[in-house]
């Protein structure tokens, strides 16, 4: 990359940062001037101090129950997201490919999925608790279900999208039905599958917060609601930022994996 390219990217970065930084400065200034209700909207510096105690504190003796628990809390949520998301991928990709490839599967399975899809995962909460109780399984069920829909829909789309001549080319080289699905339809659908997985991962983070608020007693969602109940809005806001950060990082990771797997796509031109 030449110097001009770096300069252009730097300018773009600064342009993007200008508004958020300005808002933060304004927020902080108003907080210090006591223009904000501190019980609802603490200043950024206060939130940062809270987060530091939450992340690195040496465990309060009853006075600050959050001290030093941040990493565990994040890991609880991340593990549930990973488990639910994995289930969604393991079920969603093959089902999507099947619907996209087989007319019979499209007629038999697709209407069921399209019929259930408009029910938001939040509406599944009572049913999930009734079925699984206040346990991990309930959360994983909700996360998996939420992530399943975008994954299955995009996998279907990707499998349908395969060019007729690509199928014919494989057939004339002796491909069986199995070869066609595994060696042509699946790789052809991969870009769509990754799109579905990225959307699904976003839904998974939404689902984990909802599930932890209601259905389990740990994780970022649980702390979010718990802190609200005891009036710790500084913890609530630090928690919100943590959720955003976790979602952002997992999306970046997904993007990185997708670029690795789909390296042949970046080569055009």
């Amino acid at each position: 990359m030449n110097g001009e390219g770096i300069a252009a990217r730097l300018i773009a970065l600064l342009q993007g940062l200008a508004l958020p930084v300005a808002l933060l400065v304004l927020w902080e200034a108003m907080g210090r001037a006591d223009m904000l209700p501190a019980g609802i909207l603490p200043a950024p510096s206060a939130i940062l101090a809270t987060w530091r105690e939450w992340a690195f504190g040496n465990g309060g003796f009853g006075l600050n129950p959050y001290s030093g628990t941040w990493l565990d809390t994040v890991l609880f949520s991340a593990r549930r997201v990973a488990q639910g998301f994995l289930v969604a991928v393991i079920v969603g990709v093959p089902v999507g490919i099947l619907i996209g490839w087989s007319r019979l599967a499209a007629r038999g399975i697709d209407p069921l999925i399209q019929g259930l899809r408009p029910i938001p995962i939040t509406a599944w909460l009572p049913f999930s608790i009734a079925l699984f109780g206040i346990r991990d399984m309930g959360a994983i069920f909700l996360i998996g279900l939420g992530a399943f829909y975008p994954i299955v829909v995009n996998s279907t789309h990707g499998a349908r999208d395969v060019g007729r001549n690509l199928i014919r080319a494989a057939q004339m080289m002796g491909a069986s039905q199995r070869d066609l699905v595994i060696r042509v339809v699946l790789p052809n659908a991969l870009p769509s599958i990754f799109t579905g997985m990225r959307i699904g991962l976003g839904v998974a983070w939404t689902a984990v917060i909802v599930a932890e608020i209601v259905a389990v007693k740990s994780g970022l969602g649980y702390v979010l609601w718990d802190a609200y109940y005891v009036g710790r809005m500084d913890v609530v806001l630090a928690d919100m930022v943590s959720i955003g950060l976790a979602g952002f990082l997992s999306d970046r990771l997904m993007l990185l994996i997708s670029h690795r797997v789909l390296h042949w796509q970046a080569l055009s031109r």
Partner: protein
Amino acid sequence: MTTPGNAVEMRGIEKTYPGRSPVTALTGVDLTIADGEFVALLGPSGCGKSTLLNIVAGFEQPSAGELRIHGAPPRPPGPDRAVVFQEPALFPWLTIEKNVTFGPRIQKRPRAEFEQEARRFIDLVGLSGFEQHYPDQLSGGMKQRVGIARCLLMQPKLFLMDEPFGALDAQTRLQMQELLLHVWDTLKRTVIFITHDIDEAIFLADTVYVMSARPGRIRSRNPVPLPRPRDIDMLTDPAFNALRRDILHQIREEAGKSGRQH
């Protein structure tokens, strides 16, 4: 009806696509192609020439008529009939080498068996050094060479080529035609070559079949009186021009007919 030494025999082949207003693409097609013959099917777009090729390839079934390929009824598509498509139809996620060896690899043939052949054919079509590239990194002409190389590696009895050079610029097309002639001279396999380019048909083929406008049928059989090996000087040969003029007149007549129909 089977005669030994014939690659393809067609009697009364018909193809109708059903629907609210059924479309008859082919009607009463009789065609005999000898083993090792290079045949060009020439006709206007929409005359059903691709349909005819797809029937031989096994991609489509005729509505009526009899088809024999090397004396046997047609089987599902397979490596005995290699197809070069108009758009190259390569797998964009595979390297050139993997694209070329796709056939033997899915047939689980041991690598040692085809590795050297693959290298030879990649070399023959002039793509040495591009083995590890991906299709999207190649030009249209180069992609089409990959399509040809993978067909060569299949060692088919029949080469089916569906306007393979139609999308290329004139210069690249001439290069590809010479390449194909060179390959054919060394292998002498049966070729069915679809085109709407009169020069291309005469330059390449032993026999040019002119097809009529839809519904397609064989209008005339035109043996090409040019010796082999062919070279580009023959493109201006009096025999070439005489045949060209003759076929041009036939095609104009066909165009007039279909014009009156619409």
